[in-house]
């Protein structure tokens, strides 16, 4: 029983114009329903790689398949039905006079019926918590709110795969968590998620798999726990595991596993350990 790959990248190399390659010989696959974090230092090539998933970049050599179809043979506007992309800067896309119209833009491009458009717009605005702003002029909202308009406009398209390029930059902690909770829900509903971020605690909390990029190469690809348990590798791309994982690692000698991801998890381990110790002493 072979699981069909949603995105399959084969020996992808890419360079801008005639410059040095920005991505070098990258290969990986994602299955349906995965939640992947793409991390790496500034300029590692994360955005460049992600733009291959919806055809905005075409490989200089190698192949990218979406649902088994080679992207070179498809237009970006066609691929947009399969892969949604939330950009770093929402101001590159907003041009309508109300939030609701902005969200509906993609749906009208998909030529959906009017009722369907209205329903999906309402649902997407509800999901990002902007329902009461549906008639507001987008530029009267804060940058963080505009970021959520951009997110809603992609949500509404209900693509199977959703790519988010640093969706939480410039958001306060509460809004970051809100956005990531939306992402988690999408993932639970079966969407494949790929998100780019510099916030390791978000990775620990929300991703199941991590792709670490360093100067255009994949440094590590695997389970969040196993990647964070090897800080030497992360260091090469100037990343550090979340503090709680570091703490667990330092405590490691006292039989705490080095791949702890959450505060709660460590707390429970500590409590358990204490009770075991007490158990053995008495």
């Amino acid at each position: 029983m072979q699981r069909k790959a949603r995105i399959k990248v084969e020996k992808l190399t890419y360079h801008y114009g005639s410059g040095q390659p920005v991505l070098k010989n990258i290969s990986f696959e994602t299955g349906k329903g995965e939640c992947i974090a793409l991390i790496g230092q500034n300029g590692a090539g994360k955005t460049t790689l992600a733009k291959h998933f919806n055809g905005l970049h075409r490989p200089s050599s190698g192949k990218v398949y979406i649902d088994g179809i080679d992207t070179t043979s498809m237009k970006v506007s066609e691929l947009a039905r399969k892969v949604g992309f939330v950009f770093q800067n929402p101001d590159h896309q907003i041009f309508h006079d109300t939030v609701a119209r902005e969200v509906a833009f993609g749906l009208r491009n998909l030529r959906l019926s009017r009722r369907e458009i209205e329903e999906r717009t309402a649902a997407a605005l509800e999901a990002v918590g902007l329902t009461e702003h549906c008639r507001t002029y987008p530029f009267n909202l804060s940058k963080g709110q505009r970021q959520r308009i951009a997110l809603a406009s992609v949500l509404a398209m209900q693509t199977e795969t959703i790519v988010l390029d640093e969706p939480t930059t410039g958001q306060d902690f509460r809004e970051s968590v809100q956005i990531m909770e939306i992402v988690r829900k999408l993932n639970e509903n079966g969407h494949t998620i790929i998100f780019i971020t510099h916030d390791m605690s978000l990775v620990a909390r929300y991703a199941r798999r991590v792709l670490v990029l360093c100067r255009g190469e994949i440094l590590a690809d695997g389970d969040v726990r196993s990647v964070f348990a090897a800080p030497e590798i992360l260091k090469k791309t100037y990343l550090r595991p979340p503090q709680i994982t570091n703490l667990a690692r330092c405590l490691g000698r006292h039989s705490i596993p080095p791949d702890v991801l959450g505060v709660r998890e460590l707390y429970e381990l500590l409590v358990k350990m204490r009770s075991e110790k007490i158990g053995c002493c008495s």
Partner: protein
Amino acid sequence: MAAVAEYISRNSPIHRLNPLTKMIWALSILGVGLLFNDYRYLLALLASVLLVAAAAGVLRSLLPAAAGLTVFALILLLIQALFYGQGQVLFYLVPVSNRLAVTGPGLLSGIAMAARMMALVLSFLIFLATTRTRDIVLTLVEKLKVPYDYAFMFMTALRFIPAFFSEVRQVSEAQQARAYAVEGWNPVKKIRAYAPVAVPLVLLSLNKADQLAMAMETRGYSGGLRTCLREAKMGVADYGLSVLLALLLVGSAAARLAGYGLM
């Protein structure tokens, strides 16, 4: 598109020249180009400009721009060849009915026009590609006594071009990712279809102008007397070249008065 009107970092003798010398060079090309209208002279001028580009190591980066220019050059050539109207007819563009005659002198004058246009524009692009913006401003203000406001305005406008193109790309990418496609041949529809790209661009540009103004004020723009940290020195090569270029220009003018290089 990306390399148009942008500094390209190399370590060539051309890059090391004083901006003023390069400015004189570009102006000499302009002068010589306008003096003559013989196609041989102008093709030679174009060749010399390309040689300078090669010497500066920016020829390859300028090729896309040059390719873009050839389109205009061909249009010029066509118009000139068609409407010159004198001399022996070489062939007809519409052979059946003997319409749209192309004459020998018309063709040659078309070539001359095209070569002149390419030489002038490329020399300006080479000047920009081999000279840092801040050095241009410095020269304009210190050496040529252009008021700083005007020099600054001019350079900001130039800097805006590459930034604008990169923004055009980003905005159209963002809209395409939302399944947006310019379709069909209906011109009205086409113009309306540009709104998704044009509107964010205008908003971004206004925003940028606003931020630029604020950034300038916070950094003390027009705060009184300006002093310069760096000084653009004229070297021996600069003086030598400037004199040579001046001689070339005078020589060309003399040649032209003596009747050379005319057709």
